C-alpha cells in the first residue's frame, strides 16, 4: 500500500512536470502577449514593459523562472490585475466552489434516486417521462435555460434576483448577507443541476440495469429479502462502484468554475476571471489557472483510486 502510494506520487510529479511544459508551451508560443494588444503604448514603451515583465527573455529561461516560482508556491503575478495569481484565486475560487458544491450535491442526489427508480421500473410511465425529460434537458443549451429562467422567474415574476452574488449596493452582514447570497445562488444552482443531472441519471440508470440482472440479485430475491433491501443493500452498492471514477473527475470541476453560468448570472467566480484574463492575454494568470486544474485532476484521480480500495473488496493496491 505505502509503496503503491509512493509510486503513484512519483507518477503524479512526472505527469505534472509534463503538463507544466505543455501549458507553458501553449501560452508562450501563441503570437502576441499582454503588451502587444495595447494600442495606446508606443513601441519603446512596449519594449520597456516587456523588459520589466521579463517577456523578452529566452523561452527556456522563462519556463525555468515560472517553474521555480511555482515550486515555491508562487504561481506568478497577474499582469492585468497587478496581484499575485494565488491571491486572485483565493478571491474568486470560493465563489465558484460554493455554486459547484451545492449543485454537485443535488445533481448526485437526484441522479442516484431517479436513476435507481427508473432502472427498477424500466419502461414504466415514470421511466419514460424521466427519459423524455432528460433528452429535452440535454438538447437545450445551458445559456438558453439560464436566460429563460432569468426572464420568467427574475424579470417577469420578480421572485429571484437576476444575477450577481449580492444585491448591488448592499452592505448586509451576518445572517442577512447569507440570505442574500442564498437568494442569488438559487437560479445558477438550478441551472447547473439541471445540466448535470441528465447525463448522470442516465449513467446510474444503465449501471443499475446491469446490476439488477445479476445472479446475486436473484439469489437475494430467493432468500426472501425485502425489495427495498435488495435494491439498496445488494444492488445500489454495486451500481455505485463505477461512479467512483466520476468522483475523481468532479474535483477539478468543483474549483474550476463555469464559464457560461457565471457569465449569464454575473457570478464573481473563477470562470469569469478566466474569461477576462483571456481577452487581455494575461498569460501568468491563465497558466496558473490551467496548472491549478491539472494538479486537481491528478489528485482527483488518486482519490478515486483510493476510494475504490475502500469500496470494493476485490481491489487491492
Amino acid at each position: 500500500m505505502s509503496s503503491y502510494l509512493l509510486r503513484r506520487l512519483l507518477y503524479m510529479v512526472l505527469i505534472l512536470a509534463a503538463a507544466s511544459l505543455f501549458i507553458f508551451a501553449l501560452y508562450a508560443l501563441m503570437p502576441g502577449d499582454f503588451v502587444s494588444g495595447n494600442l495606446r503604448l508606443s513601441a519603446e514603451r512596449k519594449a520597456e514593459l516587456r523588459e520589466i515583465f521579463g517577456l523578452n527573455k529566452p523561452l527556456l529561461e522563462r519556463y525555468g523562472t515560472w517553474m521555480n516560482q511555482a515550486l515555491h508556491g508562487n504561481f506568478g503575478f497577474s499582469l492585468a490585475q497587478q496581484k499575485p495569481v494565488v491571491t486572485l484565486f483565493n478571491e474568486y475560487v470560493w465563489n465558484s466552489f460554493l455554486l459547484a458544491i451545492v449543485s454537485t450535491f443535488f445533481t448526485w442526489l437526484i441522479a442516484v434516486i431517479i436513476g435507481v427508480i427508473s432502472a427498477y421500473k424500466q419502461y414504466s410511465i415514470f421511466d419514460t417521462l424521466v427519459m423524455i425529460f432528460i433528452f429535452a434537458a440535454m438538447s437545450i443549451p445551458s445559456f438558453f435555460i439560464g436566460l429563460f429562467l432569468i426572464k420568467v422567474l427574475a424579470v417577469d415574476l420578480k421572485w429571484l434576483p437576476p444575477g450577481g452574488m449580492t444585491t448591488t449596493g448592499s452592505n448586509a452582514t451576518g445572517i442577512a448577507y447569507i440570505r442574500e447570497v442564498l437568494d442569488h445562488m438559487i437560479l445558477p444552482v438550478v441551472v447547473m443541476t439541471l445540466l448535470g443531472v441528465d447525463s448522470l441519471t442516465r449513467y446510474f440508470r444503465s449501471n443499475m440495469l446491469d446490476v439488477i440482472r445479476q445472479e446475486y440479485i436473484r439469489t437475494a430475491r430467493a432468500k426472501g429479502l425485502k425489495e427495498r433491501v435488495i435494491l439498496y443493500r445488494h444492488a445500489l452498492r454495486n451500481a455505485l462502484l463505477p461512479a467512483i471514477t466520476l468522483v475523481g473527475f468532479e474535483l477539478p470541476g468543483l474549483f474550476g468554475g463555469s464559464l457560461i453560468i457565471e457569465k449569464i448570472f454575473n457570478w464573481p467566480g473563477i470562470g469569469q476571471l478566466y474569461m477576462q484574463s483571456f481577452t487581455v492575454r494575461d498569460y501568468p494568470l491563465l497558466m496558473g489557472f490551467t496548472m491549478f486544474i491539472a494538479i486537481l485532476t491528478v489528485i482527483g484521480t488518486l482519490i478515486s483510486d483510493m476510494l475504490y480500495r475502500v469500496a470494493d473488496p476485490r481491489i487491492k493496491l
Partner: protein
Amino acid sequence: MRNVMEIEHLSTYFYTREGAVKAVNDISFRIREGETVCIVGESGSGKSVTALSVMGLIEEPAGKIVEGQIHFDGKQLLNLSKQELRTIRGNDIAMIFQEPMSSLNPVIPIGKQIMEPLKTHQGLNKKEAKRRAIELIELVGISRPEQIAESYPHQLSGGMLQRVMIAMAISCEPKLLIADEPTTALDVTIQAQILDMLDRIKQKANMSMLLITHDLGVVAEIADYVIVMYSGKIVEEGEVVELFDNPKHPYTQGLLRSKPIIGDRQDELYSIPGQVPNPLDLKESCYFHDRCEHCLPICKTKLPQLKGMEGRQRVACWLYEEGTHHD
C-alpha cells in the same frame, strides 16, 4: 407419505419478439415429504423455468405463469401476495443456483450474506445470526468458519462458494430445497462431495429436494423420483429404479443409452439424432416425433398425454396407448 408440494397444470410462457415460448407447458407433479425429485432434460427443456416458477422468480413482464396451481404447505403459492410469498422464499422453500461464483454478492462478506435470511425470517439479532452463520459454515464442511465468514466471495473457490450457497439455503431449515444444477459449474471431484453433502443434509433435516440436472449419473446417485422433460412437457416420470430399469419413452431410452458406462468402452458414444424443436414453432404433435425411431403416423398429428403404467411410472407416448398399433 404426505405431499410437500403439488404442482397442477403449471404453464410458464416467455414473450419474445418472435412470439410466445411455452417454456413450461402444462406440467403436473408432486414432491413427497423427504423425497428427492430430479428433473432431467436437455437445455431448454424447461427444467430451470419450472424451478423458478415454484420460487416465484419468473421476471415479469418477459415471462409469466399463465396457468396452474402450486400447492405448498396448505397454501396456493400462485394466489399469494408478493409479501406473503416473500416470507416463504428462503424460509420454507430455498434455492441454490448453478453458478456459485456469480450468485453471491461480490461486495458483501459471506457471513453477512448467510445472516440475512436468519434475520429476515427468524428474527434473530445480529449476534445470534452471526453465531448461527458460523455454525452453518462449519456444517457444510468448511474449516476456519470465523475467518470464512469475514471473507468475500472472490477469495473462495467455486466448490467453497457452493457450500456457502447451501449453508445459506438451509439456514432457515426449509421444507423444500430446490437445487438448479448445483454441480454443473464445479469440477468432477468437487461435484461428488457437494452431492454427498446435499444428500446427507437432506436426510438429517428431513427436507424434500427438487434437483434440476442434466446429468443422469447424479440422478442415479441421489434421486428417489425422476421426471424427464422435453420441450416444456413431462414425457416420462417414475421412481428412479423403475425408470432406469425399464425406461418406456424413446427419449428416456435414448438418454440412458447416451450415458457412458464405466468399464464399458464403446467406440462411439450413442447420441440421440436430431435436435430439440424450435420452441416458437411447436405444432400439435409429439414434440419428439422427428427424432424418434418408433414414430407412428399419429405422433405427427397429436400430442400424447401422460398415462399411468405399473407403480408410479407414467409416460406420454403413443406406443403405450391402446388402439395404436405397434410395428
